[in-house]
Structure formats: structure tokens, C-alpha cells
């Protein structure tokens, strides 16, 4: 073992100063790299205005969008008329629709004598018709009183209570709205016009932009409500995807698996033309808010795109790579032409090909296929020709020396060496193209990518987006596994 004393070290240092003196670059490269990185990050912070964007971002929206991935909500509106008649309505076009007997809401009804203003003559402002909203323009009031009102008895809601979580609830009565949460109480008296003003200071969970403006009360994950002059918009949030299997309009909605099986197997037909099983399958596949059949078809398009694109690319790249390999084709011009052709296809990039073919063939899997085919002919051609250039020449020499035909030389002298490599690389590209087919789809090449992108644009369909994301990740995982298994078998066989 070598051990230096301090004297020996000093001796060596004196005779060979270059050996022991640290190189400037060796000492300073790590700090210099770190400093350069920090400077670059600061530059990007400034040039992209990241600080400003982050400061202007409404992070609450981001959070609420994230929550919407795995929840659904009921959106009843409690409207309070000036005469004290209330009504609870569910939006007509909401896919979740009305919840007939919600256990989170108690509604008390009572008959009441109402004076209904006769409809105003045409040409009046729309304000007069908004009786349910409790909003009435002051100048419209005399016009209403001019026509004699009709009187009739109606059953109206006198009290509505919405329970959000333990200790948090909202109670609406004709004269006031009371919100309780965590021991604090917010009281909003009504009937003084369109202005909304709470009695006392607002608790931390209630927000009002300006005095008299609407008040928004939040209940965390279980929802929020917006209190206007004459109405309360309630958003009651629940975890899960309630109408994932059957839509609320379906006869099978809200039933347990046993009940559904019983309905399919033993009950009389719901629709005389079809069996109950057919109804159930149709209701599931054509579920209006989840569109299972459509989503699956689009997913299949994406898978087909990657499959055909990669397969055709491999088929075309195969003969071309023999021309590009300089040990197979001994012609410099042919080698270079084929290689530059591969480089061109590869470098034009999938994006450009995808946009180009989408423009030419219209959105759909053909465009995506063509894009993958063009890019990967280049990539696979390059890899194939490199594999060919690295083969062992001896089997070929042997075959040539016994006078085999050129085709036979390639078939028995070259192919057995490269085929496992070719197949394994093709499988690898197939796997990674299943991934990239999603994104070229989003650019207009069709498939699940396009559907996903259209759903994202609306900013409202987050559960559907999450569903498609799960499907995509699952598909990619399955193809990864298949391709990995095939590749490991292939390479295992190649080694033995």
C-alpha cells in the first residue's frame, strides 16, 4: 500500500507542480455550472413573466377544477319571490339532473294565495318576466300594477334547508337566509331589493366583493352556495361519478347490482321492442354524459393509428435499410441518398407531418397513421441500417464462397442476425407511438386525443377528462407490458 508522508508529498509537489495543482476548471466547474443554472432560471423567470402570471392566477379555480375530476354536484336553485313564495328548481340541461329525494335537503311546502301579474304586452323589457329571480326593474313596476292581477292558490315552498356537512347548513326562509358553519352564523335578511347585505361581519368562509353584491359561502369539499337578491344557487358536491354506469334518465339508475340483475333477468320488459338486457347495454353504451361507446371507439382509433403507422413504417424501412447500409449495398451514392432520406423524414418531425396530413385527409386516424408512418420510416430506417452495419460478416462470406444467390446470402447470412433487433425496435416504437398518438390526435389527427382536447377546452368536463386519462394510461400500460414481454422473449432467444 502506498502511503505518502507530508515531506514526500511536498517533494513531489516541488518537482511536478502540474500534477498536484488543481486545474482551474476542475475546481470551478461545479460552482460555475450552478451559477449559470441560477442565472438562466432567473432570466427565464423574467423573460416569461412567470412571477406576474403566478401572482395573477386564481389558484382557487385550479383547486376547484382538480376537485371536479373525482366528484359530481347537484345544483338546485332556491328562488324567493317578493311575496314570500319560494321554489326549488334543478337545471334542465344538467347531466346529473334533479335528485328526486335528496337526503341532504329538506323542503317544507304549504299552500299560499298568490297574486299573479298578467303577462305584459309584447315589446316590454325582459325584466318583467323574471318573476322567479325576484329581480324587477323599478321603472317596470307601474306597468305591472296597471293590469289587474289574478289570484290563485298555489303550493309553494316555505322553508328549504341544505345540509353540507356536520354543523354546516344553509336554511332559506322567505325573509332571511341563515348559514351556519363551524359554530358561526351568517344571516342575510331579504326583501329589501336586489342588494345583499349580511347582518354583522362576514365570517372567513363567506366572501363578498362589494357591499350589496352577491355573497359566496364555501363549504370546502362538500360544495358552495351563492346568495343573490332573490335566489340561492346551491352547489352540493359529492365524491365519485354518480351517473358513470347509467344516466339519471335510465331505468337502471341508482339501483344496486343485484337489483339491476333482477330487473334484467326476471322483470317484465321496460321497452316492449327490446329485452331488458338490450336496454341496459344501450343505456350504458350511449350514456349521454360519459359516451362510453364513443370514447372506446376513439381509443381504438388511437391504438390502430399507432399499430398501422409503426407496422407500415417497419415494412417500408426494411428494404430501404439494406440500401442504406454500406456493407450491404456498396454504392456510396445509394447509401447517402437513403440515409439523408431517413434523416429528412425524421427531422421534419411528427408534428409537421400530422398537421400536413390532417389538412389533406381531414381529421381522423388516417392522418395520424400517415404522420407516424412518415416519421418512423425515418427513425426505424436509421436504426435498421445501423444494425445492419454492425453485423458479423462471416456467415455472409461463407454463403458467398459456396456460390449462394444474392437473395439467399441476405436471407441466411444477414437476416438471422438482425431480425430479433428489427422486431424488438419495431415493438419499442409501437409502444412509444401508442403514447404519442394521443398528442397528435389532439392536433386534429383524431382518436382519443382529439376528444380529450375538445373536452378540455370547455373547462367543465373534468370527470370525463379523468376517465379518458385513466383509459389512456391503462392502454399504454397494457401495450408496454405486451411489448416488453415480447421483446424480452426475442432478445432472450437471440442470446441463446
Amino acid at each position, binding site marked *: 500500500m502506498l502511503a505518502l508522508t507530508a515531506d514526500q508529498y511536498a517533494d513531489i509537489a516541488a518537482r511536478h507542480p502540474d500534477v498536484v495543482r488543481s486545474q482551474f476548471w476542475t475546481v470551478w466547474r461545479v460552482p460555475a455550472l450552478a451559477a449559470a443554472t441560477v442565472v438562466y432560471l432567473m432570466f427565464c423567470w423574467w423573460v416569461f413573466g412567470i412571477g406576474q402570471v403566478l401572482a395573477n392566477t386564481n389558484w382557487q379555480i385550479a383547486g376547484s*377544477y382538480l376537485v371536479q375530476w373525482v366528484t359530481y354536484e347537484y345544483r338546485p336553485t332556491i328562488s324567493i319571490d317578493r311575496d314570500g313564495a319560494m321554489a326549488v328548481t334543478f337545471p334542465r340541461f344538467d347531466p346529473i339532473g334533479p335528485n328526486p329525494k335528496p337526503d341532504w335537503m329538506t323542503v317544507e311546502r304549504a299552500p299560499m294565495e298568490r297574486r299573479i301579474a298578467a303577462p305584459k304586452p309584447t315589446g316590454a323589457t325582459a325584466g318583467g318576466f323574471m318573476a322567479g329571480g325576484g329581480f324587477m326593474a323599478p321603472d317596470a313596476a307601474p306597468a305591472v300594477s296597471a293590469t289587474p292581477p289574478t289570484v290563485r292558490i298555489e303550493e309553494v315552498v316555505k322553508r328549504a334547508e341544505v345540509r353540507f356537512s356536520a354543523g354546516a347548513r344553509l336554511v332559506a326562509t322567505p325573509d332571511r337566509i341563515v348559514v351556519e358553519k363551524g359554530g358561526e352564523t351568517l344571516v342575510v335578511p331579504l326583501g329589501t331589493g336586489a342588494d345583499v347585505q349580511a347582518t354583522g361581519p362576514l365570517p372567513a368562509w363567506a366572501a363578498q366583493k362589494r357591499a350589496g353584491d352577491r355573497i359566496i359561502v364555501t363549504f370546502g369539499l362538500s360544495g358552495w352556495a351563492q346568495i343573490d337578491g332573490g335566489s340561492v344557487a346551491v352547489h352540493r358536491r359529492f365524491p365519485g361519478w354518480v351517473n358513470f354506469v347509467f344516466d339519471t334518465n335510465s331505468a337502471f339508475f341508482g339501483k344496486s347490482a343485484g337489483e339491476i340483475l333482477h330487473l334484467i333477468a326476471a322483470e317484465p320488459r321496460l321497452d316492449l321492442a327490446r329485452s331488458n338486457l338490450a336496454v341496459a347495454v344501450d343505456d350504458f353504451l350511449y350514456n349521454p354524459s360519459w359516451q362510453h361507446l364513443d370514447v372506446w371507439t376513439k381509443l381504438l382509433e388511437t391504438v390502430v393509428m399507432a399499430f398501422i403507422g409503426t407496422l407500415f413504417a417497419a415494412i417500408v424501412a426494411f428494404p430501404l435499410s439494406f440500401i442504406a447500409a454500406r456493407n450491404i449495398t456498396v454504392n456510396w451514392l445509394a447509401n447517402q441518398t437513403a440515409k439523408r432520406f431517413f434523416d429528412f423524414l425524421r427531422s421534419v418531425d411528427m*408534428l409537421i407531418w400530422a398537421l400536413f396530413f390532417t389538412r*389533406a385527409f381531414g381529421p381522423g386516424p388516417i392522418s395520424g397513421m400517415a404522420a407516424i408512418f412518415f416519421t418512423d420510416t425515418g427513425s426505424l430506417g436509421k436504426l435498421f441500417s445501423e444494425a445492419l452495419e454492425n453485423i458479423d460478416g462471416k456467415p455472409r462470406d461463407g454463403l458467398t464462397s459456396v456460390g449462394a444467390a444474392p437473395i439467399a446470402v441476405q436471407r441466411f447470412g444477414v437476416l438471422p442476425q438482425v431480425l430479433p433487433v428489427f422486431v424488438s425496435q419495431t415493438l419499442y416504437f409501437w409502444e412509444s407511438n401508442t403514447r404519442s398518438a394521443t398528442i*397528435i390526435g*389532439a392536433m386534429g389527427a383524431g382518436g382519443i386525443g382529439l376528444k380529450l382536447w375538445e373536452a*378540455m*377546452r370547455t*373547462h367543465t368536463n373534468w370527470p370525463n377528462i379523468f376517465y379518458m386519462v385513466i383509459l389512456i394510461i391503462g392502454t399504454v*400500460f397494457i401495450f408496454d407490458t405486451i411489448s416488453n414481454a415480447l421483446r424480452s422473449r426475442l432478445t432472450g432467444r437471440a442470446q441463446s
Partner: protein
Amino acid sequence: MPTRLSDRAALIERHWQAQARVRRLYTVLGVGGLIVAVALSLWFANEANAGKFFDRLPHFLDFTGDLVPRDWLEVGRAMFDLPSPYDDGSLRYNYPEGRAYLMAGLYIPEYIDQMAITLNIALLSTVLGTLIGGLLSFLAARNMMPNRLVRWPARRFMEILRAFPDVVVAGFFLSFLTVGPIPAIAAVTIHTIGALGKLFFEVIENADMKPEEGLRAVGGNWIERVRFAMLPQVLPNFASYFLLRLEINVRASTIIGAVGGGGIGELLRLSISQNHGAKTIAIVILLFGTIVAVDQFSAWLRRGLVGRDAFLPAA
């Protein structure tokens, strides 16, 4: 003249023939299945496409013809924002509109400016991905992190980042951020963290453990062992993967741009969809040149860093 075989040889011959038959059957079945799958796929794709392949083929040639500019100097004018002699006030020839003036008389042409933004997005995402992925990879490598409770979540986290489609990340950030490059940066960075983190921890697991043992023997703590035992070994490989990823990310940030993230990708999508021949060709040339330049530059750097080993296909 047929050779007479001994009984034993005949048995072997029979078995060999039987096996060959089975193999031939599998080959025929496999190829037949593949052909059926291809035929079905092609039929399905043609049905699902908005335009049928053979109906659209003539239009394809028309469209390609449309891309040819009126004269080839137009391409240069489009690229450098010079006024066109054919300017009729339409979007097709309004090249000078996009100039980004640095000062009076000095401007950056629009496409070059946007290309620089796209490149910068790619570089920033790769730098961020390398920093975060590098940190995570030390937590995920078996030899540096014996604790399962840290290693397992770190690996799963990187897998999720890798698997999540970048369209969704970009779209999600686009939904609540004001316009800007952040959605594209976020999407590319998140995928980069996952992809590089995996490659990095594999490098770390293959590293020589002797320097680490030496430091451990003299009482070095975790950070010191990482800094002085592992980093000097793995840094060249990390740098090589960084460059490889940079090549991929230049393409990825262009694509994310095309689906709404801004930059050159969006301009290309707009100009192709509006049939602007000269503009499209100018952007395509610019993109092609940039991608080739980045690839060559990175290949040159990597050759210096780790030699030819770096030229393996990577995820």
C-alpha cells in the same frame, strides 16, 4: 438416391418434421392474424376518418400544390418579415405585421422570435426536469436509498409523471392560467422529470460503490456521499441524458405549442390550416433547420462526454 435411415434417426427425423409442422402452422397463423388485423384496422380507420382515403387523395395533391408559393423569394420574405410585392392586405402576405421591434429600425422576425421562445421552453423544461428528476433519482435508487418507504413513493411518483398525457397537463394549466408559456413549460417539465428520473436512477444503481463505501467508512453523511462519491461518476451520464432529452423536448414543446401552448407550433398550425404557402414553408424550413442543428450539436457534445455509448435509443 434416398438414404436409408436407422430406426433412431427415423424417429428423430419424424419428431423434427412434427416440430417443423407446428412451427409452420404458428407462422401461418401469426402472419394470417396480422394480415386480418391490418385489414380490419385499415377498414376501421377509413370509416372513422372524416375524409375517405381515396376520396381525399386528389385533394391531397391540390393542397400540396397550394403550398407552392408564387415565387420562391416569398419564403425568405415570410421568414424575415420583409414586405411582399403581392401584398393585398390579406393575412396571406402580411409578413411585416409580426415584427417584434427591439428598437426603431431593429426587429426580430416573428418566426425566429417564436422559434426562440419554443427553444427556450424546451431548455427551461429540460433544466428543471434534470434538477428535480436528479434529486428524485437519488431517493429512488436502491443503493443510495435503502429505505423502502422513501424509494417506493419516489418511483411511483415518477411513473405517474411519465404516464400522464402531456396534453392533459397543458390543457389543465391553460384552463386557469392567463395566456403564456407556462402551460407548455409545465407539461414538458412534468414529463421530463418522470422520464429523466427513471434513466438517472438506473445510472446511479449501476455506479461503482467503492468510493461511496470509502466515504461511509470515514463517516460521510448522505449529502457528502452523494456529492463526492456518486456525482463525479454519474454526472457525465446525466449530462448525456440531459442532451438527449433536450432533443426530444424541442420537438415536444413545438407539439404542445401546436395544441394551444403558443410558440412556433401554433403559428405552423394556423398557417397550414389557412393555406398560407410561403409562411408554411418558411416555418417548416426554420423548424427543420433548428431540429437538425439541435440534434447535431447535442450529438457532438455527447460524443465528447461519454463516447459512442450514449447513442442508444432511450425512452
